């Protein structure tokens, strides 16, 4: 088991309901495939540095979780098909720091 971080950039024109569904969906996927979600952060609507797939802004959802290769494969499978997502990134960490939140100020 190792620690991972996963960030999703969702499309700008999604309704709040869809965003919540999206968040809960991946929370469930991680928990159901031998993983454990440590923390979910929502960075909110941020401006993209440059245009990506004709979008100027994006909703950022950030997961910190513990899991194995199985969970990663499961997430990758689902993320590739997902239509309401612009980009995604998973990073492996030895230790997760849950204290620092770099995007908290932007939210207020």
């Amino acid at each position, binding site marked *: 088991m190792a620690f991972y971080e996963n960030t999703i950039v969702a499309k700008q024109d999604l309704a709040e309901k869809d965003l919540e569904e999206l968040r809960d969906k991946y929370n469930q996927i991680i928990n159901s495939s031998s993983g454990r979600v440590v923390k979910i952060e929502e960075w909110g609507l941020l401006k993209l*540095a*440059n245009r990506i797939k004709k979008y100027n802004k994006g909703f950022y959802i950030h997961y910190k979780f513990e899991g194995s290769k199985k969970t990663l494969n499961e997430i990758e499978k689902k993320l590739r098909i997902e239509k309401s997502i612009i*980009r995604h*990134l998973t990073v492996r960490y030895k230790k997760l720091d849950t204290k*620092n939140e*770099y*995007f908290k100020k932007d939210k207020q």
Partner: protein
Amino acid sequence: MKRKNRKSQRKGPNSISKLSLFQKNDSKFSKKCPLSLKNSPLIDYKNIDLLKKYISENGKIVSSKITSVSFGKQKQLTREIKKAKILGLL
């Protein structure tokens, strides 16, 4: 005008000997790495304010010659900057 000329004449020979073309001026270029100090901030793709300091206006990574970042930290920086670029943060 006369005074200035005198000063330049006085300073002239000393400064020339220091800044000779074939001898490197060590005192000017030795500067410690700002990221390997004790309380230096973590290099992470989420820490955008830090990464922005090491990027030029066109989005290029600034070389360690200019910023005096150590070799290992420069490698870390480039990795994290590239991650942030994938997510469209930089």
